[in-house]
């Protein structure tokens, strides 16, 4: 792991300004994190992908991928369209079963990750295409992020037994905090389906964050956003990591965002991992330049809409 | 049917809808008709209600009503659906001078039993309906006139016995009953078993799932069973398909005997040549040679007031059933008028008329219906009236009567009916009448 500790020392990227709240929270977060980098390295990775291969009817999507994500780390995965990035996330979340290899969540190995238990394993994700529950309000969408913690039965909910009512209040309060954090107060009571794209993306982040996951998987969270929206979202992501100590796997086409935000960057090409290191290392890697960076500028167009 | 008539009933209906009740118009007896001229059973509905209306028209035009009391009616379309029938009932029941209800639908009839009993208006279910309503002690207002399903079963078995050369010849024979997969179809299962035990023939009863447009497997079973006769207790599209499929498996069509719901032109025409030679039970012969039908042709259709759009259907099975039904209703009113006076009668008074509806062969002939139907003898206990049945054979173009009038074995069936009626009375907490003297509500 040559890059890991080196990365820790790297100052915050200058790319995006942060607002006051975020700065405050970041200060707390970085403080905790920066104190003992060696402790982090000693711990098990939050996510370990071990020799994962996946093919669809003869077409290789992933070939012998290995990837570790350490606590508190923002780890980007980049690559041209069709390189296998989304397939990788789908393997990690159990939507696909790999043909070979294992995925470890917090040290527990899975040949096929049980999607239904993902949230209880402390994993949350967003999707490339919008995956909000369009018929629910913004607040309700975010409350849904706590689904895995619901204990009350539907009868309890209908008849409003105290435990169910308490649970509902607790979850609403937690969602309320996220709403404030993501500056969604204005739209909290509106139906998600009718909101602008950028806001929906933010709501989706909120839904993933509300459970304070150990590992957050973001699949092209910036796709189709304006520059301002991207900056804003970058700030949110970083703050989230800093506040909750969440490890983040980020799939993103915008190289500027990736390089500024990530601690480490893995590069996929035709299902193989061709590089994994600090942004600087990756940017200097000849294989990456050949395979990917040369075409980077036209990848971003309409990527994930 | 005049425009004014319609307008009037519309006005009445809307008046009732907003909560007014018009006073009874003088000297009119009203028939609310839950007809069905659309939907899967429209052919039967247009024929039956056409015949009924034609007869009412005949009475109005020829006789100026029943002893001067005009007959009126209005129709509500039900499409043979129970809830539409109920809606029509609720809509039309407050019209003045309701004589009787004639839904020609088992489902609608059932939904109405409670209602008409409460409203004290007779419910006529000619040739169909609830078998145990034959017991007038428990069902004072329900009249399954001429033929209930049990009598039909007995009549069919008696006919087959006749063909074989006597009831003793039934012994050791095999009869398959092919029945429609519905409560209607299943109703006679125990009666066939009973008769099989009594006469010593073997009966196999095979169900055809609704709607019955596929009967390959059933007929292959029949082919394997090699029965002497097949009884078709069908309904709608099931009948022609049965005849077609019988032909396909090589079963002789003249050994198939249809029940009362498998006996119309609509049941055989679609089967084409496969139906030639098919025999079916009926309570009323078809054809237009009977005087009363001729009078309808002359008087009603001659005046351009005929109800059937297609004049070729005059004298068809359903049309003649409608006419017979008209005769029975009108005569019940006439008989009741004899007791209560020549005026608009209450439903309860008409009920009294039905309970004394006794038309012997002579009276039937006077009515111009000799040969059309045999006779009827309704009493307060017996609401069916011991109708005789006959059998008709389809020759590819029309039905021809091929048997005498046959009497079902009423005495054998009566105890079963009474038992069923008693169970109903117990379930509903009804105290059966013990004499004719039921309280008659008059105006």
């Amino acid at each position, binding site marked *: 792991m040559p890059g890991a500790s080196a990365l820790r020392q790297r100052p915050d990227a200058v790319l995006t300004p942060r607002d006051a709240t975020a700065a405050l929270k970041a200060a707390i977060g970085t403080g905790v994190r920066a104190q003992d980098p060696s402790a982090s390295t000693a711990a098990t990775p939050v996510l370990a992908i071990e020799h994962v291969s996946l093919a669809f009817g003869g077409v290789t999507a992933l070939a012998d991928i290995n990837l570790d994500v350490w606590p508190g780390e923002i780890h980007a995965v980049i690559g041209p369209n069709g390189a296998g990035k989304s397939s990788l996330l789908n393997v990690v979340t159990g939507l696909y079963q790999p043909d070979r290899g294992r995925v470890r969540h917090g040290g527990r190995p899975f040949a096929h990750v049980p999607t239904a238990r993902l949230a209880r394993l402390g994993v949350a994700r967003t999707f490339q295409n919008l995956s909000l529950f369009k018929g629910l309000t913004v607040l309700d969408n975010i409350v849904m992020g706590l689904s895995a913690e619901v204990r009350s039965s539907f009868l309890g909910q209908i008849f409003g037994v105290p435990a169910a009512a308490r649970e509902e209040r607790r979850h609403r309060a937690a969602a309320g905090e996220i709403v404030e954090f993501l500056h969604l107060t204005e739209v909290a009571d509106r139906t998600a389906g009718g909101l602008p794209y950028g806001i929906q993306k933010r709501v989706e982040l909120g839904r993933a964050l509300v459970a304070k996951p150990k590992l957050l998987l973001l699949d092209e969270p910036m796709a189709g956003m304006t520059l301002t929206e991207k900056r804003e979202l970058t700030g949110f992501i970083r703050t989230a990591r800093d506040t909750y100590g969440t490890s983040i796997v980020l799939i993103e086409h915008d190289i500027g965002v990736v390089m500024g935000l990530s601690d480490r960057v893995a590069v996929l090409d035709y299902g193989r991992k061709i590089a994994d290191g600090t942004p600087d290392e990756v940017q200097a890697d000849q294989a990456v330049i050949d395979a990917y960076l040369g075409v980077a500028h036209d990848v971003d167009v309409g990527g994930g809409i | 049917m005049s425009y004014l008539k319609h307008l009037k009933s519309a006005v009445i209906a809307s008046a009732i809808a907003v909560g007014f009740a018009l006073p009874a118009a003088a000297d009119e007896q009203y028939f609310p008709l839950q007809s069905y001229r659309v939907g899967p059973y*429209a052919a039967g509905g247009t024929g039956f209600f056409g015949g009924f209306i034609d007869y009412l028209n005949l009475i109005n035009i020829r006789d100026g009503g029943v002893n001067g009391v005009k007959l009126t009616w209005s129709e509500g379309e039900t499409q043979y659906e129970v809830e539409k029938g109920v809606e029509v009932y609720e809509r039309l029941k407050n019209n003045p001078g309701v004589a009787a209800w004639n839904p020609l639908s088992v489902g609608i009839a059932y939904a109405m039993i409670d209602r008409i009993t409460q409203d004290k208006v007779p419910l006529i279910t000619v040739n169909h309906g609830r078998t145990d309503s034959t017991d007038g002690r428990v069902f004072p207002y329900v009249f399954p006139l001429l033929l209930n399903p049990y009598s039909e079963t007995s009549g069919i078995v008696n006919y087959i016995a006749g063909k074989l050369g006597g009831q003793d010849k039934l012994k050791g024979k095999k009869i398959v009953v092919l029945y429609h997969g519905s409560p209607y179809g299943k109703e006679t299962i125990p009666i066939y078993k009973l008769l099989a035990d009594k006469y010593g023939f073997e009966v196999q009863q095979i*169900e055809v799932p609704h709607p019955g447009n*596929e009967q390959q497997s059933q007929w292959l079973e029949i082919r394997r069973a090699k029965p002497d006769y097949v009884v078709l207790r069908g309904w709608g599209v099931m009948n022609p398909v049965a005849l077609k499929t019988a032909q396909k498996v090589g079963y002789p069509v003249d050994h198939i005997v249809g029940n009362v719901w498998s006996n119309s032109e609509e049941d055989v025409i679609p*089967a084409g040549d496969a139906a030639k030679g098919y025999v079916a039970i009926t309570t009323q012969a078809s054809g237009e040679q009977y005087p009363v039908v001729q009078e309808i042709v002359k008087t009603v259709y001659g005046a351009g007031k005929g109800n059937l759009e*297609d004049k070729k259907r005059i004298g068809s099975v359903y049309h003649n059933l409608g006419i017979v039904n008209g005769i029975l209703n009108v005569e019940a009113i006439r008989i009741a008028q004899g007791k209560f006076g020549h005026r608009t009668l209450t439903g309860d008074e008409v009920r009294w008329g039905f309970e004394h509806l006794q038309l012997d062969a002579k009276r039937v002939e006077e009515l111009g219906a000799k040969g059309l139907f045999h006779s009827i003898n309704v009493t307060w206990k017996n609401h069916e009236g011991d109708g005789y049945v006959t059998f008709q054979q389809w020759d590819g173009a029309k039905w021809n009567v091929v048997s005498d009038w046959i009497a079902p074995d009423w005495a054998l069936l009566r105890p079963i009916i009474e038992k069923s009626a008693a169970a109903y009375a117990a379930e509903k907490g009804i105290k059966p009448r013990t004499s004719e003297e039921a309280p008659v509500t008059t105006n």
Partner: protein
Amino acid sequence: MFDYQFFLEVLIGGLLSGIMYSLVALGFVLIYKTSGVLNFAQGSMLLFAALTFVSLVERGVPFWGAFAATLGVMVLLGVAVERTILRPLVNQPPITLFMATLGLSYVIEGVAQLLWGTQVHGLDLGIEDSPFEVYGVLISQFDLFAAAVAGSLVAAFSLFFRYTRIGLAFRAVADDQYAALAVGLRLPRVWAIVWTAAGVVALVAGLLWGARLGVQFSLSLVVLKALPVLVLGGFDSIAGAIVGGLLIGAIEKLSEVYIGPYFGGGIEGWAAYVVALGFLLIRPAGLFGQKLVERA
């Protein structure tokens, strides 16, 4: 002792009935493939076609004249449906379109009966329906004829879709509507053609079924026989409709004869559904479905 001859007879009878189901299912498949909608009006179209045909014949129009005229009517109907229903409802969810086809079935049934009356008609296609025996097994001539017609119809459609431009467009739309639109295919035209094709299928199925049942209102109920075929064979597979029909026909008859008696008979109505469902639970992709394709 097991009666093999009887078994064979039931089996063959079932397969031949099954072909008749396939014929109805085919109309569903054509429309589902291109517009993603379960066209519940298929039954009414069948009724309408048969009723129009038989009414023309009864009014003295010769067989092929009536056939051509009915064909013309079905083409008009197809175009009209595209104009008045599909086009305004483009981009609406499948369930909305489904309900629209239910509404359409009301309209077609109403128009059919208004035009031609509610009488039942016999329909004689001039095919002898007396059975002949092969080694003691009865086979219906009419059923063989129907099977031959159904077979040629499927063959004709397969050739049409494989070798004509319109067929290519059809397959493109079936594959991916969005992409087809993107490359400039005119969806309305494809839809109109497909509905017309479904109308033709309805006519042929209507005549064959009409000859069996008589031409009457209940004719529209034959769609209920086609639905389990669709579940089993896949809503979007022509081959599935054929094989599914054969399977359902055979299973239905065999289960009625051999399992039915244990339940008191009459299980045909739902046995086909249960078999189709059971099959899907084991193999969710259906007979001819592809891997990972969700049945949606």
